[in-house]
Structure formats: structure tokens, C-alpha cells
């Protein structure tokens, strides 16, 4: 056991994946010598060479489009999108090609491409550097979408998604990159597509993922001090959702709050609310409540703390849920 930041754990996970399979290639802007602007690919070009850690021209559609071609030739590309807000130029390649080639080819072609996206706000950045675009991808059939929240998941999940034969959008909570945790690289990882109860509780289920897991845990601690027991679930998989785990919890607590940074409107929280209500209608004591970014563009960073869900807003929703 050693202490790793999430960033370092991801870096180690990538390294393991590259060691294990010579077909794994990393591509993106500044992933080479610089090691990426967040240093997630630090040292990999030095050790695996420029053919496997590819500094690409500055064009995201080009990154994903050529990754698809590489995958067709038998490679397993791991693309880094520098920041969440810069994935949109690649949207067409992701939605119309990456997501659909396996279906189009009736299974003949597999595209084991991973697209890593540092996402979310809270780092005082300028525009386009704090977005949470996961709903766009979760709405897209043919893609799988996951988010890690801690060093252990970062280390194992990145290896699991690289090993997966389906295309995966892999979200990394950038504001948690520097959080440290114990990581046992010899442990047996949890299955990729399962949610995890990160704090058991009895009164309200709080669903979170990525950067909001920590926020939810903080809320749970604060609530506990007030005698309210929150069960916090880290969804991990955003598409497909692990509804079995979610329903198991909500059927016990009968109340649920979903937390994410992305805007509420047509977001992941809506899907969770719709499904939970459909599948646990008679159990629920209160509607599923959402604590999310507001339905505005991401604001100037000096007000982002107000825009982003925080401990207090989660507790407020918990109170409202309990008041039903």
C-alpha cells in the first residue's frame, strides 16, 4: 500500500495497461514530453516512445477520427481530451462513428477506444475548462460512460476501460486530481459496471459520481452530526447505470437525492429520477430531488462556488426530501 494522488494513480494505471498490451497507444494534445497539462501521461512517452504516446496536431475531431482508424487496425487508442469543453469538435466522430461502427458492422468491427476527459469545475479556470458534458454521451447509444472519483478507481478503472472492447468515455474529476489516498495495486478491483456504496446509511440515498462523491460524503458527515443517516453511492458507471444497486438502496431509504455538477435540464439526474420513480414508485416517500449546476452556461469562476453543488445544497435537498 502506498499513497497516490488520483493523477498519479491514473498515470500508473495507464502505464500498466501499456506494459500489458503493446497495442495500447495514447494520443492527444501535449501528452508527450509535457505529460499532458495535468501530467496524467507523465513519463510515458519517454518510456514507450513517440509511436505509442502520440502528440497529435491540435484538432479533436482528428484525434478521435484517427483513433477510430487505429482501432480498426487492431490498436487500443486512449485519447486525451485536454479539457471537457474541448470535446465538442470531436462530437460528430464520437456520436456518428465511434458509437455506431460496431452496430453498423453487425459486430464485425470493434472499436476499443477510450476517451479520457478531465471534467468539472471548482478550479478557478476560464470558460470551457469546467464543464460536465457527460449527459451528451450517456444519451448516445453505443457508448459507455464512466467516471472515477478516487485513486483506487482511477488506477483500476482506467485499466478496465482500456481492456473493454467497447468505446468508453472516461471522465476524470479534475479538481480531485491532487487528492491523496491509499492505493493497493495488488487488490482485486471491483467490477467496472457496478456502483459502490461508499457510505452506508438509512434515511436518504445520495447518488453522486466523479467530483461530487467527496461532496456527498462531506454532506453525509455533516448530516450524521444532525442525526440524519445518508447512504452515499458512487455511481461509477454513468451508462449503463447500475440500477440494481441504486434500487436496492432507494428501496431501503425510500428517499433519494442525485448530485451532479452538470446542469439539471435533461441531465443524468433526470434519468435517475425517471427510472427510480418508475421502478420504485410505491416505495418513494418523496420525489427524487436533484442538486446540480444551474441551467446556465458555466459562469465566471468567481461565482463558481455558488454554481456548483456543495455540502450545504446537498443538505438542503436532504431536508426537503425528508420534509415530504
Amino acid at each position, binding site marked *: 500500500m502506498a499513497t497516490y494522488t488520483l493523477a498519479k494513480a491514473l498515470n500508473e494505471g495507464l502505464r500498466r495497461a501499456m506494459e500489458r498490451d503493446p497495442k495500447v497507444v495514447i494520443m492527444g494534445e501535449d501528452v508527450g514530453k509535457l505529460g499532458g497539462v495535468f501530467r496524467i501521461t507523465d513519463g510515458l512517452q519517454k518510456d514507450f516512445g513517440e509511436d505509442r504516446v502520440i502528440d497529435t496536431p491540435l484538432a479533436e475531431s482528428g484525434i478521435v477520427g*484517427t483513433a477510430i*482508424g*487505429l482501432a480498426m487496425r487492431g490498436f487500443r487508442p486512449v485519447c486525451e481530451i485536454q479539457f471537457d469543453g474541448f470535446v465538442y469538435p470531436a462530437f460528430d466522430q464520437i456520436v456518428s462513428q465511434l458509437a455506431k461502427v*460496431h452496430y453498423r*458492422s*453487425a459486430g464485425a468491427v470493434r472499436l476499443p477506444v477510450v476517451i479520457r476527459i478531465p471534467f468539472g469545475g471548482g478550479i478557478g479556470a476560464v470558460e470551457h475548462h469546467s464543464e460536465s458534458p457527460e449527459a451528451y454521451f450517456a444519451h448516445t447509444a*453505443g457508448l459507455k460512460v464512466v467516471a472515477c472519483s478516487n485513486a483506487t478507481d482511477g488506477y483500476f478503472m482506467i485499466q478496465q476501460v482500456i481492456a473493454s472492447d*467497447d468505446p468508453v468515455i472516461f471522465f476524470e474529476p479534475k479538481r480531485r486530481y491532487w487528492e491523496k489516498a491509499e492505493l493497493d495495486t495488488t487488490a482485486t478491483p471491483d467490477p467496472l459496471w457496478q456502483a459502490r456504496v461508499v457510505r452506508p446509511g438509512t434515511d436518504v440515498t445520495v447518488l453522486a459520481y466523479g467530483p461530487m462523491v467527496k461532496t456527498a460524503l462531506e454532506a453525509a458527515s455533516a448530516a450524521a452530526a444532525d442525526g440524519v443517516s445518508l447512504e452515499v453511492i458512487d455511481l461509477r458507471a454513468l451508462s449503463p*447505470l447500475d440500477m440494481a444497486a441504486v434500487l436496492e438502496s432507494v428501496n431501503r431509504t425510500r428517499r433519494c437525492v442525485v448530485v451532479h455538477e452538470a446542469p439539471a435540464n435533461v441531465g443524468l439526474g433526470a434519468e435517475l429520477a425517471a427510472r427510480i420513480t418508475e421502478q420504485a414508485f410505491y416505495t418513494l416517500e418523496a420525489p427524487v430531488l436533484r442538486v446540480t449546476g444551474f441551467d446556465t452556461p458555466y459562469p465566471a469562476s468567481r461565482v463558481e462556488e455558488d454554481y456548483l453543488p456543495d455540502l450545504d445544497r446537498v443538505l438542503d435537498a436532504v431536508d426537503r426530501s425528508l420534509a415530504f
Partner: protein
Amino acid sequence: MSDGDPSVAEAHPELVQLLSPEGERVAHPHYSIDLTPDEFRALYRDLVLVRRIDIEATALQRQGELGIWASLLGQEAAQVGSGRALAPDDFVFPTYREHGVAWCRDVDPLWLLGLFRGVNLGGWDPNAHNFNLYTIVIGSQTLHATGYAMGIQREGGGPDGSYPGAVIAYFGDGASSQGDVNESFVWASVFNAPVVFFCQNNQWAISEPIEKQSRIPLYQRARGFGFPGVRVDGNDVLACLAVTRAALARAREGSGPTLVEAYTYRMGAHTTSDDPTRYRLASDLESWKLKDPIERVKAYLVRNGLADADFLDAVQAEADELAAHVREGCRALPDPEPLSMFDDVYVEGTPHLDRQREEFATYLASFEGAR
């Protein structure tokens, strides 16, 4: 201004031609080709058969057997010439109109019809033919082709730096405007990837003439990216073969990408849904009819005693047979099972989709014998 006066280049567009519309062999300083009579006849056969597939498909669409068809009429030479330039290990990324290239890659025309009939979304195995599925979103495949070529590079070349195969990406004149196509030029040139960009400039993107996409000849686009561009008579199967062969050889040698512009004409409608009388004059077609890609080969063969009536009849008979295969095969293509739409969304399925499938199966079953 120090650079880029387009008028200079436009004044002398270098169009590589090896067989004139009248069927005369023409010499070119850089390109030559030497075919045996058999090879020559084989090209003729390809051209005739490919056109026949196209004509049958158009007819099948009219009869309601296909939802839509994108005819290659007039582009047979560009496709057969480039298609026959391919070595077995080369890999093709087509658009939706490369029926002639598909033919050269031994893809049964019924696969193509399946797509346009709507019984599948492609269906053949790209790796079995080194021929990718059709790509409908304009330009996307040029990036796939470039990435594929980068894969070939990463597998390593021979001691002389050469690769076992090259990649060819087809696209149209309209596609040249797409960001993706230009990004593929950036990538290919920066990585010196073994890829040939084969642009069939058929003068039209649906109703828009080439002037809406470029004010200089398209082959010159490559100049802006630092690799060679060449314009070839797209109705001349010999020139298309020679130029594509050279470009593919250059790619395999490790000398990087080439843009080939095959200058041709879309003789038919954009697709069977299109009505070209709304936007172009019938008289425009006349001059291009005189440049027909098949007639010139036939004229050459006959004039040089390479083909007699027996040969021509035999090809005709073969075309009739192929047409029957296409017609009957198309009508016999089975509709997919409703539940098959849940197949192959993922390699590793999901409980969510399994549930949707089961619910829908139950729902469908509820109609059995009912209502």
C-alpha cells in the same frame, strides 16, 4: 503579394490522361502503363459489369425494392482504375458511392443493396475484403483512413522503411470542404502516413457545383499541406490506374500521402431521390457523354483488335447474369427480425438493454394471436 496567385496554376491544369475520349493512347511525361491484352479486356469487363450493377440497382429502386440508390454512372473508370490499382493488403475507406471499388474488392453487390434496401447498415465484414463499410457522414472516413495508415506505420515497415500495405480514402468534391477532410490532410502530412486521398470530383455535391467548394482545382489543395496533388482524367481508366498505382506505391515506400483528384462527372442524379433538372441543364451532360469511360476503352480494344464480337458478347452475357443475380438476390434479401435491432450495440451487453429487449419481446408476444 509574394505567393499564391491562383491564376497561374489554373491556367495549366495538368490533367493526366492516357486514353483519350476517342480511345487513342496518349503519352504522359510522368505516368505510363503497360497492360497485357488480357488485363485490358479485364478492365473493360469490370467497367461494363460495374455499370450494370448500378443500372440494375437504379431499376430496383424504381420498383420499390430499394429505399434509395446512389448511382456511380459516369464514375466507373475512376473507381475501377483506382480499385484495380490496389494490392491485396491495401485497405479501402469508401463513401457511399464506391460500388465499383467494392466490385474490385470482391464485395458481393447484394451487400451494397442490403444497405440501400434497409435490411442492414452495411453488413459485409470490412476485414474480409479490406474494404470498410460505407460511410455516409461526409468526410469522416478520411480520418479513419489516416488513423488506419498510422496503425500500419506503427506495426513497423520493412528494412527499407516500406510498408506491406497502404490505405486509400475516397471522398467527393463536396467533402473537400469538411473540417475532417482537411484535418486528415494535416495528420497524414505530419505523420507522413501511407494514405492516398482519392477525390472523385464529379463536379456536383447534390445541387451545388464545384465552384461552391473551391475556387481553384481541388488537386491543388494538397499544396497547402505539403504533399503532392495530381489531377487525373477520371473517365480514363488507364490514367486512374496508373496514377493511383504510383500514389499507392509511394505510400507503401514510406514517402507519405498523395491527393489524387479524379476529374469526372456525375452523369445521373445525386441519388434516386434527387431531381437534377432543377439545378443543371441537360445539355451539360452532352459534352460529358462524349467522354464516356466505357466507350473509349471499347473503341481502343476494337480498333486494336483486342476485342472481337465474341468477347463483347461474352461480357454482355456475363452482365446479364450478374444483373439477374442482383435482381433476384435483392428481392430475396430477408427483412431483419425486429429483436435483432438490439444486437451488437455493444460487444459486452448491458442489463439496461437486455431489459429493453425483454420487455419489447414480451410486448411483441402479446400480439401473437391477439388483436
